[in-house]
């Protein structure tokens, strides 16, 4: 594969811009080299449709941001594609594949082993274990985790050393080296985010999925987290992350996918997608430029117009559901 050459060059912003400029900025547009393909995933909670994604492709080697207002279904979508939840449309056309491997019926642990590792919005540090033990658990294919071999140290001692070296390297990179013998539960919220990211990297993932990596992190740490995420991309990893903070999104993402009410409403480069009408509607409501305090609007004519618009939208919605 010519992976190494493409990914190396993707560290250059101009190359990335050029690559993505060929992509149509419409929901579900096809990418030149997609690593994750998602088709027809829906998830209902009772009568509420939390996620209803028709088609989505994620480009390899860049940072893609998944944004949307509260309750847009971003985290549910994450859970669905990482195997932590089952789509309601399972077996009825729901289909998603990662790096050429179909993941329709794959458990969360298998998804992780195939190279797509996630973090959680509420960090899941293994509190009563040391930071080092947390890291060591992230490594894949450890012979010593096999019950049949674990009593015979020679069978896994060598690998354990390698894992340890790698863990120390990563801890150093995420400036957690001094904390390595502390319990993970004693870390601050931001440090836990760092630890979780570092732990996910222990498995050498092809793609890392970060669920709100900046939530509850102080501004100084945000800067270093952003730096880490960008350096992951520059190392050739694909990053998909959920975020609320528009500054962050604009700052580091190469491509933005916008979700609202479970659907993907827009896609595009970070600079342009913000001015997309669908995005503004999703975030601010369709009538955000209507000044409700303006008496002039209280004419019959305007009210009729508004009623018409509402009726139209209702009809549209019914049509979609039918």
């Amino acid at each position, binding site marked *: 594969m010519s992976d190494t050459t493409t990914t190396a060059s993707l560290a250059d912003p101009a190359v990335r811009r050029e690559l993505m400029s060929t992509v149509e900025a419409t929901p579900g547009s096809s990418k030149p080299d997609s690593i994750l393909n998602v088709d027809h995933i829906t998830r209902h909670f009772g009568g509420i449709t939390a996620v209803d994604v028709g088609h989505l492709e994620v480009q390899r080697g860049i940072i893609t941001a998944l944004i949307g207002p509260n309750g847009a279904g971003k985290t549910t979508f994450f859970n669905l594609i990482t195997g*932590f939840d089952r789509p309601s449309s399972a077996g009825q056309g729901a289909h998603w594949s990662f790096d050429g491997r179909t993941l329709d019926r794959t458990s969360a*642990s*298998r998804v992780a082993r195939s190279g797509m*590792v996630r973090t959680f919005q509420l960090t899941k540090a293994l509190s009563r*274990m040391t930071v080092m033990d947390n890291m060591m658990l992230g490594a894949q294919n*450890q012979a010593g*985790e096999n*019950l049949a071999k*674990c009593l015979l140290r020679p069978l896994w001692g060598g690998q354990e050393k390698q894992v340890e070296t790698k863990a120390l390297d990563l801890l150093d990179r995420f400036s957690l080296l001094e904390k390595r013998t502390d319990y993970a*539960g004693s870390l601050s919220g931001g440090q836990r985010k760092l630890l979780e990211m570092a732990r996910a990297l222990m498995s050498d993932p092809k793609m890392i999925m970060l669920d709100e990596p900046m939530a509850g992190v102080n501004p100084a740490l945000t800067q270093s987290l952003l730096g880490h995420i960008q350096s992951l991309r520059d190392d050739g990893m694909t990053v998909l992350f959920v975020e609320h903070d528009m500054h962050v999104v604009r700052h580091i993402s190469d491509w933005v996918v916008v979700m609202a009410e479970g659907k993907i409403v827009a896609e595009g480069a970070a600079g342009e997608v913000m001015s997309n009408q669908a995005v503004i509607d999703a975030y601010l409501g369709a009538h955000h430029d209507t000044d409700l305090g303006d008496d002039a609007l209280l004419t019959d004519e305007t009210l009729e117009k508004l009623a018409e618009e509402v009726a139209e939208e209702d009809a549209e919605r019914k049509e979609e559901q039918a």
Partner: protein
Amino acid sequence: MDDIQNILQAMMRVAVSPQTAAVAIAVIGLNIHFGYTGLLNIGQSAFMLLGAYGFAISITQGWPLVVAILMGLLVAFVFALVLGVPTLKLRGDYLAIVTISAAEIVRYVGRSVGVEWLFDLTGGAQGIPGSQYRGSFTSLSPFGSGNTTILSFNYTDVAGGSVVVRLLGWAVVIGLIWMAVRIGRGKTSLEGTGRTAAIIGISAATILLAFFLAPTGQQNTGVDGWWFTFIAWILVGISLLIVLGLTKSPWGRALRGVREDEDAMRSLGKNVFAIKMQALIIGGLFGALGGMMYVLPATVQPDSLGRSITFFAYTALLLGGAATIWGPVLGTLIFYVGRIFIIASANTYLSSDKYINIMNSQQTSQFAFILVGVALMLLVIFRPQGILGDKRELRFNV
């Protein structure tokens, strides 16, 4: 002074009894479940009872000893699978409900008299008398017949067994135990092998000194004799070595990971169900081994391996410190010896005309349980991590 010496002798007899060792093995298994993996198994007695049945029935059917032991382990293995498959995918509480019910089902099936072929095998509530299955184990004894007192050189040989010698001796014993606990909790600079060696050395010295102060005489080979004691504590040692190896390995690390957060482990690509199942089976096998050892000097009576044994095991585990290597053994010893201390003291001082007579012997036993209960409450309030546990672990809510 004779009274005190008698109480100490009674405590010593319980401390070395093979049944105490047997419970310690079962607690070691429970520690894998609850301490390391976070599996709330409230049916450890069922693993013990099934191991005991598998063992005893095999021998009464005329099978050799080795096959009988394997049979006992096999039954526990199958039981673990049956319990684990439906419950380990669910939240932890379900395992607790299922295990306690399953343990009761096993006990009631064991004591049922309705089905004739089953009654022929288990002997109902009366159980299988030890004489029917003990023979092949007793005949292996290289110790011969007769009685032996350990140690034959004891306190009576020094200064005529004066009070001073004995008080001094027990002070040293307490000091040694305190030192071992400190080392066990990692408060000293000793690390790794040195630490283990120090603990073993101090334990050996403590045991010798205890025997010196309270010499214990028993038959060499008979029921409850030295042969049983010897094998039982050898088994405890082997179990400890296995657990030490398991928990220091990456597999043991994965167990603790599952205890902390299953979803995080899934996100790291670990097969959580498989890890929990393996832990349930390994802990269950230790339970079965403990059960076999427990019934060897006694009878396979379903009611003697009921709920109370499970609760004793939990008490011992919390007392010693969950998720520690030495905690289960230390906890079991303190629990059983402490209980006998209360019973013997109450019998001596509260139930005889020589001092105060306010209880009969049945009441002293109940009185002991009341005090044990109060002690457990105090322990959970003031030292929830147990004697050997690490207090740092409690600062984080799970």
